[in-house]
């Protein structure tokens, strides 16, 4: 099933906490901050679900030369944007996995292997996965990522793929879950709730 979803890159570095993927520009389905993705692990026995929290374009001295030219011809600009193998690197936080038909919202037992294909998680799967919100703990407990913004972006994405009538209810439920988890840190909670409000 995963193979039928849009391909967004391949794993280059990984651990059980997450994985880093690389994709060449331009792809029709560029990864976006807060979007859900999946990569095969354990020789196809399991799938690791990830949430994209960082997208970067590697530094490139050659492109920098072109950037410094005031009136660079459009053909050379397009060459750098479309042809050159300057990869977009994206980082995904592991938020769960699927094995033997069962979905778990905890860290996976094994990470995907290098060069494992990374695909977009289909809307139906995102909708199903986000019926439970235990994965928010994995995000909120990560100290090295923009966790609060990621929670808001991921929940906003999960809300938008639902029917119009269900979106507000989903976000209110998610907001309550965040309130339970962050009852000890009202400043963070306020940031997330404001972010969720903006998704409405």
């Amino acid at each position, binding site marked *: 099933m995963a193979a039928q979803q849009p391909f967004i890159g391949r794993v280059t570095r990984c651990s059980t906490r997450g994985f880093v993927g690389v994709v060449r520009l331009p792809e029709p389905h560029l990864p976006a901050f807060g979007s859900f993705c999946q990569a095969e692990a354990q020789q196809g026995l399991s799938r690791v679900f990830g949430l994209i929290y960082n997208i970067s374009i590697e530094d490139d001295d*050659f492109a920098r*030369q*072109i950037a410094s*030219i005031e009136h*660079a*011809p*459009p*053909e*050379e600009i*397009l*060459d750098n*944007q*479309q*042809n*050159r193998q300057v990869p977009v690197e994206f980082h995904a936080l592991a938020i769960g996995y699927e094995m033997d038909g069962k979905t778990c919202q905890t860290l996976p037992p094994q990470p995907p292997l290098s060069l494992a294909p990374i695909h977009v998680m289909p809307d139906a799967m995102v909708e199903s996965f986000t019926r439970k919100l235990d994965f928010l703990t994995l995000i909120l407990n990560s100290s090295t990522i923009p966790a609060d913004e990621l929670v808001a972006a991921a929940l906003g994405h999960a809300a938008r793929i639902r029917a119009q009538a269900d979106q507000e209810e989903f976000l209110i439920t998610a907001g309550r879950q965040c309130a339970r988890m962050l009852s000890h840190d009202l400043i963070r909670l306020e940031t997330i709730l404001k972010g969720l409000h903006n998704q409405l």
Partner: protein
Amino acid sequence: MSLNLNQLLPQLQYLGQHTHQHALKQAAQLPALLEALQQSSLSQADMLEYIHRAGMDWRGAIPTAEPIHQTFPAPALTPRFSILAADGSQVHPDRHAACIFFLLNIGQICIERGSKQAPNTHTHSELFYHETDLYPGDFGLVDNSIINARRDVMEIGALADMAEAGHSRPVMAMLDNSLLLWIALRSPEVPSQLSEPVVADYQKQLDRLRNQRTALAGVIDRPGSSNLVALLQLLGTPLDHVSPDFIRHANKARLLDRTLLTNWLPVGYRSALFIQSSPVNRDFEKLGYQIQFFYLNPGFKDSLLRVEIPAWVAEQPDLLALVHAGILDQCRLTNGFPYALARAHELAVVSQSDRRLLEQSIQQSLLKQGMRPHISQKSRQKSLLSARRSFDIR
């Protein structure tokens, strides 16, 4: 680190001193040579008389109808034209590897100026492992010079393919080397049974480009030639003294043309056209591909390009103007070296990691056939030692 810095430090100091003294000595020659260039009043026929008297072994710049001191500003550039470039790299055979092969990798790019479209790029990779490729004739394992020459043929062949593909006209095509095939230049060292087919193939590709009326140019950055200096030194000799014997015994320590011209040629200007005197060029001339050259100041610090063009470009003012203005336009983006050539190189270059991947894939292919590939002990020890070095404490 393997360098013995204690031994090297005094040598480095002497190297610096020597280079400085050499530069001073060269600078002392500059004013006289520049004056000789600027004040040159000899006619083309008079200069050809000097060259005739110098004999066939004289290596220098033969003047054309353009006065040797004349410089030419950049002509206007047509808004729509195509820029083609090709470059190649190779993996030479290694008898310590799991099996004997060589690889040629050609990068090519076509930019259609004015189209507002991304250029077409392509990399052609070809493995050579047949006996006929590895052991041509009865001369043992193929010499690297033959492999390099086959790469040159593939590069110019890639240009010819693109030129025939019907891109926007006019078409400028560039190579990152001399147009006189290198193997032909060193033909005394390469058996003619091996070099002649390669040279013939190269000339066939030149024919295809000429038939397409392509503005072909070989671009050489930091040229190491002294052809123009040799001409000026020859013209500074009394005509009565000039003879093949005199040339053989003349002092060959020369200034480079680029040292002479870098600060003399205005930005964007090209020098006069010259013909390189060499037996190879005489052979090329007989077939209608005489190679001419000019120097070009692309406008970046201490940068000077030598641009080689075939006669069919030199004799057509519109093609010559396209090469002049087109190369300048390309150099604007990449600090004095044409963008398309830089990209063709990027598309062609085989990195160390590419090479490792290739070798691993070859070993897998052999394993699938039930073979047990192994590299030589020497190669294995080298890789172990180099891996150890990568963990050196910094």
